[in-house]
């Protein structure tokens, strides 16, 4: 058999089931690829021995005819998910060598379905960033290179950059990720992968290091739509330990892949045609609409009038929640502690040394917008705008639209150091098409639509009704089928 890391998750599953391949062989192949790909810096912690032990167990189960839905399939876990007995860092110095005694619900769901876990994937520190450059463990390098510019290190997007790069570089069959303002969809878009941010409440947040609790949601990054559907089925579900998780039936998402999209009404929001949108992105968007139309869907223009307020509003709400969520990293109970003259001095030294500049900036913004005298002007108003953004979508869906089509990102991936060095807002603008979805708690999918002239992937975003991920999977599959097939890069980065 050829290189098993080049199988899709669905293909690998079927190969294991028909015993053409063993879980140990599949796992070993991925461990080998990871070892040769350290130049990409995808993993913060590799767990090859754990993975092989899980794979041996999977082979035993397959032999006994007791295979579970993800039996023996090697995945990567974003290092924001707490993993029992495996160091969990959130890509921050402040957690030091924190090793949880517990497993996050979503990763536990995957393990319970038989998945093999290869290790913990790099990310922006505390998931705050759009390029993976804020990681305390160094930036992740995308396997993609710009045409004619082999020296520029391209970013894999963020915050789930380790996840997207590892998937695109065939270091795992799929990866868990999290999305607060675009952290699944934007890195998926930057690497030609598929990224699904489910409806808020679809996946449990329990055991995932919190960034902004009202926006955070777990989801998969994979190389195909079908793979994402398979993974999400295992990840999703009600969890009594997370009050905001929703007790709703989790459908068989894989069955939606390939389902007809005939007669579906797709809204194209005029407000997303932002000033300065590149012709290439505009053309991609038009192509996406055409592909869906060809598949039998109806394209209608819609209006989401409060779209332009989404980004500034997001950058009030997310930091506000983060400033409070990150208060627990105080050097008292776990993680890093710097000695101080007294407790206040200890706090200040610990947090100054433990948090990187972007995290510190967001804590400062969040503290400011919640403080007396500013709370009403910033936080309360932002919440009002947030409900208007949600209402825009509610009205669009009420008018008969089944899903909304937009570009996933305003540009292709950029190179390290190109954006945000002087002005952080330049980096924040990456999320302009994705944040609205988190603000409204809706499901969103990024699906590749081809390559740009610079050789880097371009992606479309589909936004669905609450808990209607199925429609998104069928629409995303239609785009995937119509779009030029993404050929992931050859492993130029491999050592030896």
């Amino acid at each position, binding site marked *: 058999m050829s290189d098993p890391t080049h199988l899709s998750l669905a293909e690998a599953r079927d190969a294991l089931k028909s015993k053409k391949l063993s879980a140990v062989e599949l796992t070993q192949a991925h461990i080998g690829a990871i070892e040769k790909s350290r130049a990409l810096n995808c993993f913060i912690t590799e767990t090859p021995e754990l993975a092989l032990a899980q794979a041996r167990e999977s082979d035993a189960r397959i032999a006994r005819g007791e295979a579970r839905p993800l039996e023996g399939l090697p995945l990567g876990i974003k290092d924001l998910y707490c993993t029992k007995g495996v160091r969990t860092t959130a890509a921050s110095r402040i957690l030091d060598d924190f090793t949880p005694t*517990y497993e996050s619900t979503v990763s536990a769901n995957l393990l319970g379905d038989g998945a093999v876990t290869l290790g913990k994937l790099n990310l922006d520190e505390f998931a705050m960033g759009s390029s993976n450059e804020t990681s305390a463990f160094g930036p992740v390098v995308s396997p993609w290179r710009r045409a004619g510019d082999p020296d520029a290190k391209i970013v894999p997007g963020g915050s789930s950059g380790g996840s997207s790069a590892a998937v695109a570089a065939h270091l795992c069959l799929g990866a868990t990720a999290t999305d607060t303002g675009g952290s699944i969809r934007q890195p998926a878009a930057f690497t030609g992968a598929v990224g699904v941010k489910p409806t808020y409440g679809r996946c449990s947040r329990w055991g995932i290091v*919190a960034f902004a609790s*009202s926006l955070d949601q777990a989801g998969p990054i994979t190389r195909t739509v079908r793979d994402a559907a398979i993974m999400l089925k295992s990840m999703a579900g009600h969890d009594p330990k*997370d009050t905001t998780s929703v007790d709703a039936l989790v459908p068989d998402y894989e069955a939606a892949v390939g389902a007809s999209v005939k007669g579906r009404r797709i809204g194209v929001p005029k407000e997303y045609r932002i000033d300065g949108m590149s012709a290439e992105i505009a053309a991609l968007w038009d192509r996406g609409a055409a592909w869906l139309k060809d598949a039998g869907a109806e394209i209608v223009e819609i209006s989401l009038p409060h779209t332009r307020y989404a980004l500034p509003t997001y950058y009030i709400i997310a930091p506000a929640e983060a400033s409070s969520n990150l208060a*627990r990293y*105080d050097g008292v109970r776990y993680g890093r502690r710097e000695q101080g003259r007294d407790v206040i001095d200890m*706090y200040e030294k610990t947090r100054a040394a433990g948090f990187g500049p972007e995290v510190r900036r967001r804590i400062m913004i969040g503290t400011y917008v919640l403080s*007396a005298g500013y*709370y009403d002007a910033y936080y309360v108003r932002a919440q009002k705008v947030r409900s208007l953004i949600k209402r825009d979508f509610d009205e669009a869906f009420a008018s008969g639209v089944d899903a909304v089509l937009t570009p996933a990102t305003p540009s292709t991936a950029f190179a390290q150091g190109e954006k945000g060095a002087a002005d952080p807002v330049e980096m924040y603008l990456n999320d302009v098409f994705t944040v609205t979805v988190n603000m409204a708690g809706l499901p969103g999918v990024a699906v590749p639509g081809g390559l740009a002239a610079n050789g880097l992937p371009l992606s479309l975003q589909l936004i669905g009704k609450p808990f209607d991920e199925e429609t998104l999977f069928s629409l995303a599959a239609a785009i995937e089928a119509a779009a030029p097939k993404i050929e992931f890069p050859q492993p130029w980065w491999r050592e030896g």
Partner: protein
Amino acid sequence: MATQAAPTKFIKGATGDWEVVIGMEIHAQVTSNAKLFSGASAEFGGAPNDHVSLVDAAMPGMLPVINEECVKQAIRTGLGLEAKINLRSVFDRKNYFYPDLPQGYQISQYKYPIVGEGEVIVDVSPTERIMVGIERLHLEQDAGKSLHDLSATESHVDLNRSGVALMEIVSKPDMRSAEEARAYVSKLRTILRYIGSCDGNMEQGSLRADVNVSVRKPGDPLGTRCEIKNVNSIRFIGQAIEVEARRQIGILEDGGSIEQETRLFDPSKGETRSMRSKEEAHDYRYFPDPDLLPLEFDQPYVDALKAQLPELPDAKRARFIEQYGLPPYDAGVLVMERAAADYFEETAKGRDAKLAANWVINELFGRLNKEGLDVASSPVSSKALGAIVDLISQSVISGKIAKDLFEIVWTEGGDPKEIVEARGMKQVTDTGAIEAAVDAVIAANPDKVDQAKAKPTMLGWFVGQVMKQTGGKANPQAVNELLKHKLGV
């Protein structure tokens, strides 16, 4: 302010009368097996950090889940305070850094508490009742405990209490004396104990009070208040108010002004001292906790809890007055503790209720107080006391003998009726025997007989002599009648 105190409650200052205005925030630990947002035990004590879950220690990725039992207790308490129950309330985060606050914020209710306005009837004295308004009741988490004396260079933190559910009960500034404030806390504690939502144990910190005190000249607008934090006994609450009112009057009479601040009461020095001023007050950056949905329930849920509430002290007091014909004060004393009220009703059942009430209040409570016991651990059961009351009612023993009998039952136990039989404590009702004793006393004291004829109040002396002769067992009424007859008075 609506109410003004009676002039008798004013404090005399150098420049005239002052009125003290008091409002209180009571923190009552909710009686529940588990903490407010985690499954960990809420039991008091245990080795440090024994009752700590991952949520209580604020481990990364942990989320709070509301404990429904605590919600029910808050609703029940709200009903007991005749208060508005809010069908929708919101949990907020109160952000501040402290080592015994693991999350870096306390989950509390700020804008939308679970319970709104209510009122409490407070018995200040046998003759005075006042109404104290309740502003709100909300649920919140307790913090852990910092221990600074275990090491010279380090502090230790015990998180056993971290996350335990508290009800903060905020009164209106409706109290006008230390006495009223003490009576309010006492009444609130009675209500909480009846409902079973808080054990009211101030020594263990289950009930703590923050006392807001201000003073003013009668008729003036409210003065600037100071908040005295964490006063942990009813006696200290009274003392703290008195010294704080005196301190404020002293400052104002010297031409100074009161600064709004938080103060601590030091019982050993009998003074309050500044903890932090208004300028140093924290900016808590309250905002709705995004980990928790708003707390919502419907009216039938509240109604079901209401239907299960026990009879509360005010209703019980009214019933005791009505059903047993007790004086209001006695009824009030009996209902202070639910167990005591139950004890009384068991004792009074099928008997002379007033007599039973006297025995419960005077003999039993007196003795329990002296020994520092509560009703539940009384050596004399309600059944035994009932039997003693029966023996008195049936004129088998006199009141005086009954006290001896009570003492025997208290110290030795046993069935009162059998003790009376076995020890020959029955009072003598045989008129022949009494008459003999009466005749003997008359015969021995001819001079006193003459005096008695002139001055009928001498009769008492004769009664005493007869009782002495009969070892206290003669029926006093029979003695009285015979004497009257024989002496011709």
